[in-house]
């Protein structure tokens, strides 16, 4: 463990995982909002909205995340000149958040849509009989029940998102996988220990997340 005893290395290690957490946090919020909106579009009676939602899901769910993130950097930033922050790292960070969000939103959308299918048809019919509009039905009756039934899949998506965040390293953000590569590069004699520390940190972050979502899913499940 002499590698991590060096304060510079240890700081790099900490900041690497801090970037991962920041990426995961911001992307999770955006992906949840976009994903739920997309799901609403996909079940709406308006064909254009349905088509838009389906197109989004099919494009981003079937494109490798590396390409999505690369497009954000070389397409949005480099070619189209979309600059999100003066600071280089922050700019890369926000470009990464865009990529992760649009990609993960596709998965969130499909999870929510499968949740919508678990809500008995009678619920929507009753809501319509009461005179609620489509938006009201969705917001007040269907989505609350739908999202509660897909908490466990949300957990899986969040875990995947956290690991996917390492891909932002390819556009130059010094997140954990880049830090690991640097450390391996500089300490060729300690490849396995370094690898185990990084893998172990991910496991330490994500295993409790999995259990937490399992517990939450149980607690929030709609009892029928």
């Amino acid at each position, binding site marked *: 463990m002499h590698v991590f005893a060096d304060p510079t290395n240890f700081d790099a290690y900490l900041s690497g995982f801090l970037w991962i957490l920041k990426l995961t946090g911001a992307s999770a919020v955006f992906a949840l909002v976009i994903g739920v909106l997309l799901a609403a579009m996909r079940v709406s009676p308006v064909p254009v909205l349905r088509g838009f939602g389906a197109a989004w899901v099919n494009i981003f769910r079937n494109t490798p995340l590396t390409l999505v993130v690369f497009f954000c950097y070389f397409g949005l930033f*480099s*070619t189209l000149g979309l600059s999100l922050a003066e600071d*280089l790292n922050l700019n890369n960070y926000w470009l990464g958040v865009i990529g992760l969000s649009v990609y993960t939103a596709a998965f969130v959308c499909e999870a929510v849509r499968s949740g919508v299918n678990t809500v008995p048809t009678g619920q929507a019919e009753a809501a319509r009989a009461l005179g609620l509009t489509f938006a009201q039905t969705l917001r007040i009756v269907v989505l609350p029940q739908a999202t509660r039934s897909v908490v466990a899949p949300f957990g899986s998506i969040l875990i995947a998102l956290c690991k996917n965040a390492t891909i932002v390293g*390819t556009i130059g953000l010094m997140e954990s996988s*880049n830090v690991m590569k*640097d450390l391996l*590069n500089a300490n*060729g*004699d300690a490849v*396995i220990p370094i690898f185990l520390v990084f893998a172990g940190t991910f496991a330490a972050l994500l295993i409790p997340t999995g259990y937490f979502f399992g517990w939450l899913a149980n607690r929030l499940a709609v009892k029928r």
Partner: protein
Amino acid sequence: MWSNAVPRWAPFKKEKSMRIKRVAAVAAVAALSFAMTACGGDSGTGSGGSGASGIVGKAEGQKKLVIGVKADQPGLGLQTGSQYEGFDVEIAKIIAKGLGVEEGNIEWKTTVSANREPFIQQGTVDLVVATYTINDERKQKINFAGPYFIAGQDLLVKADSTITGPEQLEGKKVCSVSGSTPAKRMQTEYPKAQLQQFDAYSKCLPLLENGQVDAVTTDDIILAGYAAQDQYAGKFKVVGKTFSEEPYGIGLKKEDKTGCEKINEILKAAASDGSYKAAWDKTLGKSGKAAPELDTTKLTNCGSV
């Protein structure tokens, strides 16, 4: 050996011990592979040929060599299809010829900066000729012949840029490869420059072209190779003010002193018979830079004190 672990008098326990057995087997395999990777570094003096050990022995015995080169650096080591070309590759060919190995019997292997020492230590490659800077840290693990070229860190900027040296980079954006020596030097010596890092220099160039970064930094010889690429001809210039010294060596196993001395002899011969200059003219010379003199007095002493 495993069957002893299951007592015959306890058939009802069989299922459980089977499981334990399997777990133990998996653990043993894991431990074994762990141990093998861990020990790979110091496992003897290589798979030499008959008689003499090391690369000289292998070249004599098997008439074959495995040489590690870079695959993504124009002018030095660039892979196009299954072919490798560049100055490093030409140098490697000269050495192979000197060792009595024909060009067709060289097996090229792509190496990146991070795996060069492990590849040599584990015997994956016999030689590494891949923009390999000789330094003391690396000398502890492997042996260096050469240097066959002295590079220096420099800046690549747009043709109309006013940057003339690293001290003008304050607040500017500079692109380099993460983990590389040039990137580290930027961080420690010029921390006021913002550093964009990628895994390959080729990604820096479109950014430089579009003006999102102000300079690309690495060894001058590598930059010259990029500047000479057809699609960027005339757009970039190398500043030409080096701020470090990077002697490129040829890496081989630490124990292989004979091989190292032999390579130095070959390099000396190449400097005097013109094949060194021919190698330069064929590759990096195309950028318009005249062939450097190979200073044979600076060749390493191959680890002898």
